[in-house]
């Protein structure tokens, strides 16, 4: 498992990947901070659903507000990336090549996923730092006070936002991995993943308000954004954990037992 972890990191630490990641993260931070601060409503103005106000941005968690909101939109991106990565390994035969070197399949899969998730955790931390920097630069232009941002409460809010985002994106990643292993085809897995977690669950939620308490995509939105969709964060965390454990466990069994014929 450790060898596979190191091998996956070898792929991720290439200069091309590093440059693309830094550029993407920088763009995310600037866009998220700009969008959140420019759309913040002033005192007395009606706030949009899930919107922010100058008052809320001036509070302890204001520094990472843009990060938290931005991360809630990154879930689908992580789902797509993990489906493409894992299904690509299967359909292009590279898993077969790796399995001839490491036949302990669960260890191979666990090592790969651990490396990818470690990479996600690192990128997420980097994104949070950049978003805070961008927010700090933009705040004065929008008359948002940053006085409360860098105290103990501010750091606590930053840690909580990071934890929620990491938990949510880890869940998206593991669900993407499971879907890729079950389906094995990149386009089919992507179609299922995107349609299910995007339009399907939201249409279902429009038709039945209780969907937000049960369906994984909606629960993940609740978890990452810290509320909404009619479920508590605790309920979202527990149910998402159950779904992810079942999906990842089933995928692990399938991966370990299925003949590798591609």
């Amino acid at each position, binding site marked *: 498992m450790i060898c596979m972890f190191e091998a996956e990191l*070898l792929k991720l630490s290439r200069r091309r990947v590093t440059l693309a990641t830094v550029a993407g993260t920088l763009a995310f931070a600037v866009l998220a901070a700009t969008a959140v601060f420019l759309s913040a409503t002033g005192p007395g103005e009606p706030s949009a659903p899930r919107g922010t106000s100058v008052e809320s941005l001036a509070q302890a968690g204001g520094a990472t507000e843009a990060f938290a909101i931005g991360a809630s939109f990154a879930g689908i991106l992580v789902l797509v990336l993990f489906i493409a990565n894992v299904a690509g390994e299967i359909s292009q035969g590279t898993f077969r090549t790796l399995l001839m070197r490491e036949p302990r399949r669960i260890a191979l899969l666990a090592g790969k996923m651990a490396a990818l998730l470690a990479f996600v955790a690192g990128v997420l931390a980097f994104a949070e730092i950049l978003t805070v920097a961008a927010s700090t630069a933009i705040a004065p232009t929008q008359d948002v006070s940053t006085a409360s941002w860098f105290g103990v409460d501010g750091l606590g809010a930053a840690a909580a936002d990071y934890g929620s985002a990491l938990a949510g994106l880890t869940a998206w990643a593991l669900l993407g991995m499971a879907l890729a292993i079950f389906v094995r085809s990149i386009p089919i897995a992507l179609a299922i993943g995107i349609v299910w977690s995007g339009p399907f669950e939201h249409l279902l939620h429009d038709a039945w308000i209780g969907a937000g308490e049960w369906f994984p995509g909606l629960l993940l939105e609740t978890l990452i954004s810290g509320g909404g969709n009619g479920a508590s964060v605790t309920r979202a965390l527990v149910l998402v954990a159950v779904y992810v454990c079942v999906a990842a466990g089933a995928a692990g069994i399938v991966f370990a037992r299925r003949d590798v014929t591609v």
Partner: protein
Amino acid sequence: MSDPPAVQLRGLAKRYGSRAAVEGLTIDVPAGVVAGFVGPNGAGKTTTMAMLLGLVRPSAGTGTVLGKPLEDPASYLGQVGALIEGPAFYRGLTGAENLAVLATVAGHDLAEIPVLLDLVGLGARGDDRFRTYSLGMKQRLGIAGALLGDPRLLILDEPINGLDPAGVHEMRGLIGQLAGGERTVLVSSHVLAELEQVCDWLIVVDHGRLVFQGPAAELLDRADATLVVAPEHVRDLDRLQGLLAAAGHEGQLDDGRLQIAVNGDDPRTLAAVVNRAAGSEGIILAELRVAHTSLEDRYLSMVNGGDR
């Protein structure tokens, strides 16, 4: 060859529903040989190799690889290198980076990589991305990957498939170069002619069943031989045929020649008998030679049902 077999399979089978890909395969590959694993497309070669590599679970049967049980691939795969179903690498990584990933997964020394790239003739292209390689280069990178860790058993599935004649020649040379010492090479192909020059052991399968296994020379020995006889004058052909028939050697007329089956006799003795009989009747022979069925013809007759 006194070492235990590198591969020993007993009644190995793989079924997909009602279709049998491999059926009761019992084979031995002696240690240190270059073994050709030959059979037509769909004969079960790749499935058998995949079972040796732990990629496909057998439906029945047992076996050992390098003396370790087939059911426990982790116990022997560290000493096995393989290229199966074509070279599968990361297209965006260079050849050297791809080998580094494989070496890291298996815990091998990264210092091997430049040496192996040189060995397979990719020393100058190791820093180019895999997607820019020709098929022959991809195959050679696959072999370099298989050689990581200096394996005792090398399993190569159709490494010559799709290569141009120059590539086939290069690959044959490379396979010959990889053999020797304690290393065993098991290489598959659906064309025997591609392998007969480099193999000293042959396994022929068809429809998932074993048709032949043994030294390559034994397969040649089993090949049918005929004596080809042609008189100087075509008008003597019928007379010569009658003469030989009277002596107990039936011949078939074929394009101005007589073809006489050797049928286990010593071909030289039979040639002397024919020559003496012709000479005694004043028939001058313009042609008298032994013709062997080629190894390829012998193989084709086997996989077309002759020996099943």
